[in-house]
């Protein structure tokens, strides 16, 4: 594929921890991707709409404040409703291991927790985006 992968890096909810999201955004850029960074305090609706208008290949969300079980699945559902279930959804942040199976079940393709090298995230996105 010679077109760049387009990724929306989003911060849902009221969480202000953006160090990780910004590090990930930069790493994706340096891996040749086009990154649309949303900034803080995005609602699931805003994120889904952004992903659609930007024709993103992937929505990458970061939450460190514990609201992931509530907010991640909402975005997946909204994308589905809008017929955009071919957009890969991944998430990262402080997410207890117990919560991961439920999130995967809900349609988040991958969850990346503290200590994950950005190269792992990059490879995952490259290998799992649904559109070639």
């Amino acid at each position, binding site marked *: 594929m010679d*077109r*760049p992968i*387009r990724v929306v890096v989003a911060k849902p909810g009221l969480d202000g921890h953006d160090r990780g999201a910004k590090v990930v*955004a*930069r790493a*994706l*850029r*340096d*891996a*040749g*991707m*086009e*990154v*649309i*960074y*949303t*900034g803080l305090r*995005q*609602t699931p*609706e*805003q994120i889904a*709409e*952004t992903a*659609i*208008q*930007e*024709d993103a290949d992937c929505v990458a969300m970061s939450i460190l404040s514990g609201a992931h079980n509530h907010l991640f699945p909402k975005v997946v559902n909204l994308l589905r409703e*809008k*017929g*955009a279930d071919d957009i890969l959804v991944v998430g990262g942040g402080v997410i207890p291991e117990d919560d991961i199976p439920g999130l995967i079940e809900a349609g988040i393709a991958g969850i990346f927790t503290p200590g994950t090298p950005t190269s792992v995230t990059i490879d995952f996105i490259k290998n799992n985006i649904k559109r070639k």
Partner: protein
Amino acid sequence: MDIKAGLLNNDKRAAARLISMMENGEPEAVQIIKECYNMTGHARIIGITGPPGVGKSTVTDKLAKQLRKEGKQVGIVAVDPTSPFTGGAILGDRVRMADLNNDPGVFIRSMGTRGALGGLSKAVHGAVKVLDILGMDYIFIETVGVGQSEIDIVKLADTVIMVMVPGLGDDIQAIKAGIMEIGDIFAVNKSDRDDAERTAAEIEAMLDFNRDEEYRPPVLNIIARDSKGIEKLLELVEKHWEYENRSGSYKKKKLNRVRAEIMDIFRDEVMKTLYSISENTNIINELAQKVMDKQMDPYSAADRLIDEFTNNQRNN
């Protein structure tokens, strides 16, 4: 997904996909645009340009909000630079327009300059056409006013707003040399700061120097952050539009624009073929060997490539 049907059905997802396809230079996309070309021409196209960080996105956001109040549909294409080293980009203009994200009457698209072979202006042209077909009443193009390709893009607009800020000082001098000519309206943003009036006066003075036509670009102090001066700015846009139509300048511009676009597409196609031939090391190696072996001279070798080129073009 049936993109064309979707587009005609005002489906944002189809439109978004079509923009990507145009951006990626996919032939099917061109086909769809060809088929829908008659539906273009409705939207008013506004260019927003100026140095980095002067508030272009903020201005765009506020103008869009004002137009939404008037019930207009608004499209926005925001261009940010692609890293020449990695081919990646961070597209951050949307951050300033976050509350427009879930307004159904707004469509925002971010775009990287990507750089390779000047495809940018074609991509922006493409996006604007798609948004036009989608029924947008106004389409904004935001791009940083540095670099020739960015300037070319803004020329696509019916009205160009050049955004400046107080205290640009030396920057104004630099801008004067290059892009002063392309502004139809000058907005001195961040006029909450000192020296706002003086900067406006400086720009006025520069305009005196540069222009002696019938239309004199107005200079307006605004504070986009606080939505101050936005209504007035829109009025100036309308005034400019009236002038353009009244004076016939619009028709001329439009013709030039279409001409430029044809040339752009033409140049692009030629470049593509040229690129694919020069990347084809087999032929080149072969010819080089022949020249080495004195079986051929370099002039004839180049002629061979030109044959190759014309054949290639025909087959396209």
